[in-house]
């Protein structure tokens, strides 16, 4: 399949995501060196706890941006570009209003809730073989896999909010793992799965990821 679109919305979202991930990577490297030179491993748990809290604060704005990007990325499967801009604006208003009245954590939970609901809808539609979804690539298993993989990512971030509830945290973690592993398998090996599932002649050409 050849990708011919130039400067699409998807492309800029990917560049923005890459930028945020690069910043998070930079913070991680900073954390490593700080940990070493402050000799945190030799300090008391309270000081270690303060370091963790500080690192959480440092990274949280970028996690928020990542969540917002995710929340914009998910509906792009469902909506045309012009509606996507309106959705992004509406989401921003909801986030700001919720932050004003209920705080940042609740705003993020709302954003994640909306993202999760939409991603579930995308997955269901992909499973049903809906032609109305907007994906860069074609292929049933590739779309199902990509939807499941991104659902896993949303669930993982949601799960981090629940880490204090040990039982629920671990249960949701395993759901996350299953969704991610299934998603990666279906997305990365879609031609093989299509062949295995019996629809090889129909699926193989569309699952191909040729860049030529």
């Amino acid at each position, binding site marked *: 399949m050849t990708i011919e679109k130039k400067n699409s919305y998807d492309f800029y979202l990917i560049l923005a995501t890459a930028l945020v991930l690069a910043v*998070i990577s930079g913070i*991680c490297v900073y954390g490593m060196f700080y*940990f070493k030179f402050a000799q945190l491993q030799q300090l008391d*748990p309270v000081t270690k706890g303060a370091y963790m809290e500080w690192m959480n604060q440092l990274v949280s704005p970028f996690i928020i941006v990542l969540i917002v990007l995710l929340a914009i990325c998910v509906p792009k499967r469902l909506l045309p570009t012009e509606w996507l801009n309106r959705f992004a604006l509406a989401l921003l208003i909801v986030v700001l209003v919720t932050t004003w009245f209920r705080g940042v954590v609740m705003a993020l939970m709302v954003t994640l809730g909306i993202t999760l609901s939409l991603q579930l809808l995308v997955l269901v539609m992909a499973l049903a073989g809906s032609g109305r979804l907007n994906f860069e690539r074609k292929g049933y298993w590739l779309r199902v896999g990509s939807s499941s993989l991104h659902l896993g990512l949303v669930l993982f971030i949601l799960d981090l909010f629940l880490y204090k509830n040990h039982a629920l945290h671990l249960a949701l*973690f395993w759901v996350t793992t299953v969704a991610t*592993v299934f998603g990666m398998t279906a997305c990365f090996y879609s031609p093989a799965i299509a062949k295995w599932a019996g629809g090889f002649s129909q699926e193989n050409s569309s699952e191909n990821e040729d860049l030529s």
Partner: protein
Amino acid sequence: MNLIMQSITGPFSYIGQGIMIALLAFSLLGGIMGVMNVSRKDSVAFPVLQWTFVGINLIFMAGFVLICWLHYQIYQTLPLEFPEAIVPLVNQQLELINAQAQYAFPLLDPAHPPRYVIPLWVENEKYYFWFTCYSFMAFFAFLHTASHRLKGALVVLLTLQISILYWFANPFSQPLPKFFSEIGAWYAAGDDPRQMFGEFMRLYPRMIFYYNTHYMWLHPPMLFLSYSAITVTFITSVFMLVKRDVEIETLGYDSAKFGYFMLTLGMLLGYPWALQAWGPNWWWDPKICSSIMMWAIYSTYLHTRLYANKKLMWYFTSILGIVCFVAMIFTFISSFYFPGEHTFQ
């Protein structure tokens, strides 16, 4: 060292050294031909290069079988066995510990003394496993590319890895030195019950929560598989910078997909174990930081690859493939340089 240990490690070292010498000889031959293929316009002695590569893989497999034998012998012959009369006292102590802990120690059963089920990738064996994985993946890439230069480069990097293994991380010259030094004290304790008890309380937690834990059988090998795949992607990325060859890019991408799969799964499977072993105090541990960094770069690589047909994105993706490799080396070395829960220091 006790006689039982010597009866295991003696033949292991003797045969293993032979394997390492053969591996080095084959890899040097392959390396020379690899350099010739990389530097010349046409392929040089291709059948010899291919059969040398097959030979290296077979020798790697023989060494791995030998490592499996060593670990089986440890399981069979080195249990933590107590005189039956002392077992109730030990169990009483373990019950006291279990009452205060979230995760319990299994109590002792004199009929089935605790045995070591050591994973096949601890101490220097991890390098052996890692480079074996690379050897097989590189051979797969070798068979699936028409570029003799890429074939040569894959072998040259393998030669470099085997040289590192031979000179700096030979798992056969001194088998599992840390493990045998740990358990040596247990056997040195003789029949003195008080000394045995002290040694047991030192060894048992490490056996249960490190050597015998299922996590050690899943988390590290997946990461080493991932590291090997990243190395193949790195070589293809360097080639992508030189020439716009879709076949090589596809090979690198296939390798990257497998590597990302293993990295993500390996990291995820490490998570519940980390909660169990360290509680919540590990999240910003240096190794975790570097792993998240590597995963983020890798995720970026896979996303930008969607647009690799654009000229600038082609080069950007190639550079990211190289950065992934640098991040992987940095992440691995961080275990030596940075203190924390994952440190090898």
